[in-house]
């Protein structure tokens, strides 16, 4: 993949920093450790721990988010969810449980629905991410967004972005053939307001409408 200069100021301030050099020094230290007598090892390991804790290395990351190529750099521990919300200000994707249990953070990566809270951003290098912000075509809402409004598919609206991303995937995966199947395949998305019956209606409607999703 070719790297273009990014027009995004965010990524300017995240250019690989001193971290890379520190890391190389660190690796050399590790190699040295391998040949150090065990008696000296403990002390050296402690020092390494101390340095490791204070050191942050960033990794370059190319992502296409909602059709726009982005050149970024992230710490390995950054999840895709935190990257979207905190670094890129795309707060449509919601953080519920942050542990894979509620589905609020559902996004599409290379066309598949996944949980962004359990996805490390660095592992998505070169992939295409679609979030709730990427569904509408200008002022024209996505058919699933329309259907959620029409069928009253949400109350507080917190789980709604994840539900909509999952609902679309559910149809694309051909798992929307009956209300029962829809419920099963939407079960990874929890709604604390209990809007489920109307969510199912919205998905049935879009499926039967036969629009392209």
């Amino acid at each position: 993949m070719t790297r273009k200069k990014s027009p995004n100021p965010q990524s300017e301030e995240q250019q690989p920093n001193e971290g890379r050099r520190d890391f190389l020094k660190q690796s050399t230290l590790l190699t040295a450790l391998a040949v150090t007598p065990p008696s000296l090892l403990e002390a050296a390991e402690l020092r390494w721990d101390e340095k490791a804790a204070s050191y942050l290395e960033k990794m370059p990351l190319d992502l296409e988010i909602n059709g726009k190529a982005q050149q970024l750099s992230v710490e390995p521990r950054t999840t895709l969810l935190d990257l979207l919300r905190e670094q890129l200000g795309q707060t449509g994707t919601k953080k519920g449980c942050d542990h894979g249990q509620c589905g609020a953070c559902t996004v599409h990566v290379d066309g598949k629905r996944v949980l962004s809270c359990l996805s490390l951003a660095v592992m998505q290098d070169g992939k295409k991410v679609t979030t709730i912000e990427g569904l509408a075509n200008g002022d024209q809402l996505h058919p699933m967004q329309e259907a959620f409004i029409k069928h009253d598919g949400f109350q507080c609206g917190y789980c709604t972005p994840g539900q909509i991303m999952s609902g679309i995937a559910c149809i694309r995966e051909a798992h929307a053939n009956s209300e029962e199947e829809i419920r099963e395949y939407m079960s990874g998305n929890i709604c604390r307001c209990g809007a489920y019956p109307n969510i199912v209606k919205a998905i049935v409607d879009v499926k039967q409408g036969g629009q392209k999703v």
Partner: protein
Amino acid sequence: MINFGYSRVSTIKAAVEALSKDSNAQWIAGGTNLVDLMKKGVTTPEKLIDINNLPLKEIKKTGNKLYIGALALNSEVAENELVRKEQPLLSLALQAGASQQIRNMATIGGNMMQRTRCSYFYNTDMPCNKREPGTGCGALKGFNRMHAIFGTSEKCIAVHPSDMCIALVALDAAVLVTGPKGDRRISFQNFHRLPGDTPQKDNTLERGELITGIEIPDNSYQDHVHYLKVRDRTSYAFALVSVAAAVNLQGDTIQDVRLGMGGVAHKPWRLTETENFLKGKKASEATFRQAAELALKGAHGFGHNNFKLKLAPNTLVEALKIAAGKA
């Protein structure tokens, strides 16, 4: 999450080397279990080795076996034509696990390696011999509703959480691994282990051994199979008790049968004695009841999970009835 180093490998050799020479490194596949455990501070690797570029995603027929690469996704395996046609029990078990979003990330290898869902194991303020050997077992006298009734030790009473593995143990699968000392093949029954005095070890893999895939030998369990998972909610929860049942019928007579049970032991529980009892018998509720009694031999509860002593045999009977078309 504590920060860590990260690197990608694209050959199996590099993956094995990376782990063998760095005792603080761990492989990451889908990340659905590892990232969760790292967020909770249950495990704190200093380096993650991303193995997603390894060529281990294939699902194919090799001779009289079905081969599935370790990096094949749970959702892809569940919906694969070959798997559905030849090993429908595996497809059913996979579909009963987690949610579609998680199955789209979770890999076959990672699923086998996922750690217990014991809540004491997950809570770093609690004692747990599996997380920190020697600290004691919080569940033994604590809230142990989800815990094991077979093969426990006083060191640990946790259960293995995977649904897929219950089908695989019933189907006599083999695990293919590559490590610093070369390749080996482990029968699925011997892959996971009982807690004994070393509950920190979930399985018989040695450090640096990578799962490359699994193999399932051909069988005649295409028509009468069922995976029954009993859980607190109708979907998207771990099993209280689950049963994988495959029956080969001739008329009403059981020619052959395979039974795996989940949610009851530290490893996927195979019911060989029960299978032997059923062979040659008429498929009927009465026979299944007798079989279930036999299956529960040696089981005991720890208080909150005593209900499993009733739930397990009932689940077994129901799964056999559905599999044999007697429901």
